[in-house]
């Protein structure tokens, strides 16, 4: 896909199950029980087990890698504004990453992102800049 200013990138939807969270916990080293224990999650006032914010951001990085054929990421960041609750069933939930090329400047491509789960935006001000 051509990375030209204004280009809309094909939305990517990725499923998230409890198994995804267990696997991500092991790979990242983030064993916070709010990402695997309903008991602990609800005890600290969360609606249930939630995805690691960093797992959601890893999926954003995956979308960017897929869109840009693995371009070098220079900057990546977001706020975690709404938790992604992952039910303990076979379907789990899903995150959708939408992107529009905002600018192409001196070899740096900035992609404006929208990251949602259900109808809710889950990341605030997600931003990525790649060298392409």
């Amino acid at each position: 896909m051509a990375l030209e200013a204004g280009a809309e990138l094909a939305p990517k939807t990725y499923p998230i199950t409890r198994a995804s969270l267990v696997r991500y916990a092991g790979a990242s080293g983030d064993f916070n029980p709010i990402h695997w224990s309903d008991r602990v999650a609800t005890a600290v006032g969360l609606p249930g087990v939630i995805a690691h914010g960093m797992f959601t951001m890893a999926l954003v990085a995956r979308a960017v890698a897929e869109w840009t054929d693995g371009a070098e990421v220079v900057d990546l960041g977001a706020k975690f504004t709404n938790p992604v609750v992952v039910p303990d069933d076979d379907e789990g939930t899903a995150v959708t990453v939408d992107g529009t090329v905002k600018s192409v400047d001196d070899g740096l491509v900035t992609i404006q992102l929208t990251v949602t789960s259900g109808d809710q935006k889950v990341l605030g001000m997600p931003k990525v800049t790649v060298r392409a």
Partner: protein
Amino acid sequence: MAVDGSLVGRVFPPTRPYRVTEEKVREFAAASGLGWESGDQVPATFPIVLAFDAMNAFLDDVEVELSRIVHGEQKFSYARPIAPGDVLTTSLSVATLRQIGGNDIIGTVSAITDEAGALVCTTSATLVHRAAEVA
């Protein structure tokens, strides 16, 4: 329990050097659904593996329970890409501390440097330490 305000500006001891291996990168990529092969870019959020080491040491030190921490924000700024074979060290410092509604909002900055001491990536994290009791 509120986090002590004197934390701001504190620099924690650097983590022990971490050698980036292809096997670890492949495991991390697979966990986010990416097929990764030798020569591919290391996933952009990979430095969180190092940053967590530093954050866990910090949270232990200030005696904060991990389950009361929710991630508020994370940013990565790269000076150069990470590659397998890199030996990286992370230095965490506390940049900001605010209290909102009984929650502590802790801003940390971690500098990840290579064996030569050159900066590879700066990663900043906002950690929300949730109040123990609902006000």
